[in-house]
C-alpha cells in the first residue's frame, strides 16, 4: 500500500510537471474576473478590455515582459500572489500599509478620489452624519470597505459587503441598499449607465484618509521580488513620459487619472 501510494504521488507530480512546465519569462498578471468598468470589462466574445487592461499591456510592453492576464477572484489575489499562482496584481488595488505588510507595490499608476453614490430620492451627503441610518454597500476587502468600517460603522444602519462592486451597484439600483462607496471613476461609469441614470446620483467625495485609502493604485508583486517591482515602476514612468499613458487615457476619460505627481518611494 505504502509503495503504491508513493508511486502514485510521484507519478501524479511528474504528470503535472510534464503537462505544465513553467516558462520562466512569462509574467502572470492577476485580475479578478468581474465587470469593473471602465477599468475592466468583458465583451460578449469573452475578451477582457478596459483602461487598466490597456495600461497593464502597455506597461508590460515597455518593460519587455511577456504578460498573460490570469483571472483570480478578488479575495484570492493576494493569497494567489503569495503562492505563486500569479506574479503581479494589476487590478485597481490601492497601495495601503495593511497590504504592504503582505506584498510589495510598484509606484502608483493612477489615483482617483473615493465617492459615495446613493438613491436619487434620498438627500444626504458623504459624511458620517449624512449616512446616519443608511445601508451602505461596499466591495469586500477593498480600501472602501476598510474606510466605511472605520468612519461610517458608528452611524450607518448596516455596512453590507459584496463580492463584486457590480453586485453592490445592482443592489443599489434594486433599492436594497441606500448608498455605495467606491472609486469615483467606477461610480461615474455606473451613473452613466441606463440603470444608474434612473436610480441614483453622486452624493459627494468622502473626507480624505491617507492611512486607509492610500496614495493610489499600484501593481502588487511578491515581497522581495524587487526586480519585477523596479521594472514595472520604471515602465510606468516610461509610458508617462513617452505619451502612451495619455494616449490610452484619452480613449476612456477626458481628464488625467494619474493624480498628483509624486516622487517614487
Amino acid at each position, binding site marked *: 500500500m505504502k509503495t503504491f501510494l508513493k508511486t502514485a504521488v510521484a507519478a501524479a507530480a511528474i504528470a503535472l510537471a510534464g503537462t505544465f512546465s513553467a516558462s520562466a519569462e512569462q509574467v502572470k498578471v492577476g485580475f479578478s474576473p468581474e465587470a469593473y468598468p471602465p477599468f475592466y470589462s468583458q465583451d460578449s466574445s469573452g475578451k477582457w478590455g478596459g483602461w487598466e487592461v490597456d495600461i497593464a499591456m502597455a506597461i508590460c510592453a515597455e518593460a519587455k515582459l511577456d504578460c498573460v492576464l490570469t483571472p483570480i477572484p478578488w479575495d484570492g489575489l493576494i493569497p494567489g500572489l503569495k503562492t505563486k499562482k500569479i506574479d503581479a496584481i494589476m487590478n485597481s488595488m490601492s497601495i495601503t500599509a495593511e497590504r504592504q505588510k*503582505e506584498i510589495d507595490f510598484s509606484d502608483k499608476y493612477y489615483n482617483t478620489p473615493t465617492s459615495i453614490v446613493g438613491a436619487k430620492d434620498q438627500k444626504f451627503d458623504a459624511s458620517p452624519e449624512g449616512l446616519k441610518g443608511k*445601508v451602505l454597500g461596499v466591495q469586500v*476587502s477593498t480600501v472602501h470597505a476598510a474606510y466605511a468600517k472605520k468612519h461610517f460603522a458608528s452611524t450607518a444602519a448596516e455596512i453590507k*459587503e459584496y463580492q463584486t462592486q457590480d*453586485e453592490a451597484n445592482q*443592489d443599489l*439600483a*434594486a*433599492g436594497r441598499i441606500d448608498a455605495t462607496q467606491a472609486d469615483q471613476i467606477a461610480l461615474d461609469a455606473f451613473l452613466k449607465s441606463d440603470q444608474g441614470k434612473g*436610480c441614483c446620483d453622486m452624493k459627494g467625495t468622502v473626507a480624505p484618509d491617507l492611512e486607509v485609502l492610500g496614495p493610489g493604485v499600484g501593481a502588487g508583486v511578491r515581497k522581495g521580488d524587487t526586480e519585477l517591482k523596479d521594472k514595472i515602476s520604471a515602465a510606468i514612468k516610461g509610458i508617462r513620459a513617452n505619451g502612451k499613458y495619455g494616449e490610452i487615457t484619452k480613449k476612456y476619460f477626458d481628464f488625467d487619472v494619474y493624480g498628483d505627481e509624486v516622487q517614487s518611494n
Partner: protein
Amino acid sequence: MAMTRTIARTSEWLQPHRIVLIIVAAAIVLACAFLMRWDWLPAYLPLALQGIWRTIWLLVVTAALGITLAIPIGFAQAAGPAFLAVPARVFCTVIRGTPLLLQLWLLYYGLGSLFPQFPWIRESFLWPYLRQAWPYGVLALTLSYAGYEGEVMRGAFAGVPKGQLEAARAFGMRRWTAFRRIWLPQALRRALPTLAGETVLQLKATPLVATITMVDIYSVASRVRQETFVTYEPLLLLALVYMAITGVIVFAFRKIEARIPARLG
C-alpha cells in the same frame, strides 16, 4: 463484569496502529497550534459565535420549513392525482437538476432586480423584508431541501406496505386519520436514516448564502482571511466547526431514531 467489558472494548478500539494515528494527529494539531497564526482569534471570536449561531439558525429553519413542504410534495407524487403529482414531479426535477448557487442568484439578483420595477411592491409592508438578503437565502435553501426531500418522501410513502393501509381501513379509520396515524409515521420512520444524510448536505449548502451578503460562519471566515491576510488558518477552523455541527446532527438523528420503535411491518 461491566468494567472488563469496557476494557475489552477499549483495547479492541485502541489497536497499535490507532495509537500511531493518534500520535500523528496530535502532532499535526500541535504543529497547527504552534506553527500557524492564531493571534486573530480573540478579536473575531464574538463575530464567529454570531456566525455559527446564524448558520445553525439557517439550517434548522430551512430544514423544518423544507420538510413541511416535502411531505405534501412527496405524498402528491406517491398517491396524489395527476394534476398534483405532475407539478410536484416537475418541481423536484427542476430543483434537483440545477445548482443551488444558481437558484440562489436567480432569486436574489434575478428576482430582486425585477421588484423595483413595481412601485406597489416597494410601497408594501413587505419591502423592508424583501430588501434584506435573508428571506432569499431562507427561500432558496427551503425550496432546495423540499425538492430533495420530496423525492425521499415519495419513496417512503410508496414503501409503506399496502396491508397496513388496508388494515387501517378495515378498522374503520377515516382517510385523514389513517394518513395521520399510519401512513405518515411509517413513511417518516423509513425516511429518517436518509434525512440525517440529507440534513448534513443541507448544512454543507448553507455557506452559499455568503455570496448574497448574509453573514454566516463561512463569511466570517472569509472576512478574517481578507482583513488579516491569514490564508489557511480560518479555513481549517471553519472545517472543524462544520465537522462539529455535522457530528451534532448525526448524533441527534441517532437519538431520534433510537426513540422510535424499529419494527416495521
